[in-house]
């Protein structure tokens, strides 16, 4: 006869053993997700559980919003209507002017024999639902997902300029990484002289930083920055920001250039999701970029050689 303890004393493996097991499992997942992005299948499977909960959690806020809309007074609406009409007139005027300018630009380009860029950018409005619960990154969720045909990598803008980029798409929601996120980069061009650079997010400061610009680069305070479009993701000519501070130091090879984003990055509610303008040729991407989050190009293809373009003309 065996002398084993009664079953109510059996407690499975020792707690320390269990902790080691789960900690190693977590670390393995972290490495797989951060370095190689192999964990997306698991992420999508688990999203089936979390998404209904998230939808339920969003319902009260949405209902409150609807009730608030219902009680908006008529005078408020009339005021807003008048303001919007004035804005529309203004916008129509500049749109007409832009059309004329674009036609002229195309003519000139043809004259110069430059390759004409295809400009079939389509846009879909979306609303920001909530900020991601993650103090380490600047991300928001918008209310359009795969069901509405959103693709990862789409540029996101508001009425004033670029806000960020779709980094992950769920069925009903998409995750947008804001330009100010530390790991987000966008290729820009100085509108005045065409100088190319890459703007990186400045994190908590809410600013952008232009890196790898030579100390003698021709850039001054107040220069407007627009997207250069050479990455094939952001269409050319969207407003990105204004240079607010240039530090040139004889001891450094590079100038430190900071700029204020043009869009109301942490403020607005409604944004536009653009489709990426062209398909991007796959290019190898240096190792130091793949740490944590070259996620902006989500689907794994279409890495652009950012380091190269950073050097600029």
């Amino acid at each position: 006869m065996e002398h084993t303890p009664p079953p109510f004393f059996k407690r499975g493996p020792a707690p320390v053993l269990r902790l080691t097991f789960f900690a190693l499992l977590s670390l393995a997942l972290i490495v797989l997700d951060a370095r190689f992005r192999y964990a997306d299948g698991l992420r999508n499977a688990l999203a089936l559980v979390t998404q209904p909960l998230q939808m339920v959690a969003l319902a009260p806020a949405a209902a409150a919003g609807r009730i608030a809309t219902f009680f908006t007074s008529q005078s408020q609406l009339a005021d807003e209507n008048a303001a919007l009409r004035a804005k529309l007139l203004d916008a129509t005027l500049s749109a007409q002017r832009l059309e004329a300018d674009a036609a002229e630009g195309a003519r000139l380009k043809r004259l110069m024999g430059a390759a004409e860029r295809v400009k079939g950018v389509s846009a879909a409005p979306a609303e920001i639902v909530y900020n991601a619960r993650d103090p380490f990154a600047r991300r928001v969720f918008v209310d359009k997902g795969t069901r509405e045909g959103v693709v990862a990598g789409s540029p996101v803008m508001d009425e004033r300029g670029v806000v960020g980029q779709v980094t992950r798409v769920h069925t009903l929601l998409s995750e947008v990484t804001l330009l100010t996120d530390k790991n987000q980069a966008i290729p820009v061009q100085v509108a005045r002289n065409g100088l190319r650079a890459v703007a990186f997010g400045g994190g908590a400061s809410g600013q952008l930083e232009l890196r790898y610009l030579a100390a003698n680069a021709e850039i001054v305070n107040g220069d407007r920055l627009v997207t250069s479009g050479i990455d094939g993701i952001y269409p050319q000519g969207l407003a990105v920001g204004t240079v607010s501070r240039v530090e040139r130091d004889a001891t450094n090879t590079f100038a430190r250039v900071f700029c204020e984003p043009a869009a109301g990055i942490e403020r607005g509610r409604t944004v536009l999701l653009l489709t990426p303008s062209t398909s991007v040729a796959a290019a190898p991407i240096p190792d130091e970029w793949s740490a944590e989050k070259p996620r902006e190009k989500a689907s794994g293809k279409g890495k652009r050689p950012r380091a190269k373009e950073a050097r600029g003309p």
Partner: protein
Amino acid sequence: MGPDGRQAILRPVRLSTIAVSFAIALLLNFLPWANLAFVPDFVALTLAFWCVRQPRIVGLGAGWMLGLLIDVGNGVLLGQHALAYSLLAFCAVTLSRRILWFPLWGQALHIAALLLLAQGVGALVRLAAGAEFPGWALAIGPLAGAALWPLVSVVLLAPQRRPNEVDDTRPI
């Protein structure tokens, strides 16, 4: 008499109570809060509670699974919360006998240390993965969570309390 003084004997816990409490905690975590810095992590708090109260039912496995759900729901690095919650569950299970001997505010102090530890581990993981340090406001959430501990204890133990009309002919 229970370890914490004047506590009555409780009825055995039902698994459905635990499941529902975790569902509500997840829901609270997913609410679109305006300012995240002051919002405690309800799932971590609930996990700590059940690990302290029912260490044989809720432990590392449950913590790890919940951590994964939080990681997916918040769209953060997969495994970040899983690691933090397994560590939290381990400490809570190990300390469960000790913690219950303290009055509620003493328990809350223990829980504050555990929640801070979990938050710290999560922060270390993210910093190692290349994120920027968001400032010491990170510590506010866990402290707010610990401040909620007495409330959570009362609410989550309510289903186990015996009815008021006690049968005097029974010994307990």
